[in-house]
């Protein structure tokens, strides 16, 4: 087994709140500088920037887990990751179908653009990506799992847009592959409040919206290689694979 440094929650220039500096090239350069082995690309309600970051990262020997940060109907932010481009496209269609038709106002929210490896703008998303999609957290978890993906409620201890802020507490029967905590609470203190979550997997990431914050927090994945199957095993804590935070 090897230990891999992973920052699994990174926004790009596509997220309206993401810095224009968050191009594939800059993200990969910053990850190299911070000696990060695996990056998760998780823009708000869109997977459209994953492909070009993957291409750029592959050249640098960095693994990308292609994902998204979904805003559920309850306004809970949840991360999801998918193994292949085909599956990612299927999930993108689901997002497109359920994202409300509210136009982005670039003055208020910022630009939502997809850029290629050479930083050319190749797409601009007209709909506001930070809206809540018209699907509940349970419906989204089911769809992610139907596609063989991994479902991870984001920054669950945060006072806004989190499982705890929106739904009061973590539903004990929620089908989550892990939970993300922020730097503001230790896992021990969190478990004091939610003792029924003992034994669950917790991860920590930067949630970076600008390059210098990439890797500020990270998760160590102990596994055989950086494949998606190994990632799933590490989150599940099986076959000697595990998550170290």
């Amino acid at each position: 087994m090897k230990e891999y440094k992973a920052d699994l929650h990174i926004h790009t220039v596509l997220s309206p709140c993401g810095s224009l500096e968050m191009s594939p090239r800059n993200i990969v350069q910053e990850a190299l500088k911070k000696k990060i082995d695996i990056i998760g690309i998780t823009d708000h309600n869109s997977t459209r920037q994953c492909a070009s970051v993957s291409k750029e990262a592959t050249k640098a020997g960095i693994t990308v887990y292609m994902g998204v940060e979904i805003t559920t109907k309850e306004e809970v932010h949840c991360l999801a990751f998918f193994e292949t481009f085909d599956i990612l496209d299927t999930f993108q269609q689901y997002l497109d179908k359920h994202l409300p038709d509210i136009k982005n106002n670039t003055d208020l929210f910022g630009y939502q653009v997809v850029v290629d490896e050479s930083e050319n703008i190749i797409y601009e998303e007209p709909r506001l990506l930070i809206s809540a999609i018209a699907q509940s957290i349970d419906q989204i978890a089911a769809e992610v799992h139907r596609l063989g993906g991994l479902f991870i409620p984001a920054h669950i201890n945060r006072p806004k847009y989190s499982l705890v802020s929106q739904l009061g507490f973590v539903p004990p029967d929620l089908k989550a592959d892990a939970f993300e905590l922020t730097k503001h609470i230790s896992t021990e203190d969190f478990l004091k409040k939610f003792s029924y979550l003992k034994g669950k997997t917790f991860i920590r990431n930067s949630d970076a919206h600008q390059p210098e914050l990439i890797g500020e927090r990270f998760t160590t994945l102990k596994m055989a290689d950086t494949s998606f199957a190994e990632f799933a095993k590490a989150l599940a804590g099986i076959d000697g694979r595990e998550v170290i935070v």
Partner: protein
Amino acid sequence: MKVKEVAEKLGLTVISGANGLENEISMGYSSDLLSDVMGSAQSGDIWITLQTHKNVMAIASLKDLSAVILVKGFTPDPDMEEQSNEENIPVLGTTEDTFTINGKLYNLLNQ
């Protein structure tokens, strides 16, 4: 005032938890953040929200609330409806928005 009386006077639909229609309402609380309701709602309050997750019923039960009103025609998720019946806490429905139903309810409870 009893839940039943409020439902009749405001024309609310009884969606579930009909066994709790005799619950006594003290006052109301309006919020869509369940963490906020958990911290601030008072026992006996009727809760006005648009959230339809089953955690709504867990918190209504924990805080000993009298009933839940779902606004804008929202309907409870199946497991929320189930829990409403189990806990005898009615879920009432209205097509009106939060502002309108709050105003009517405020006047009714303060008569």
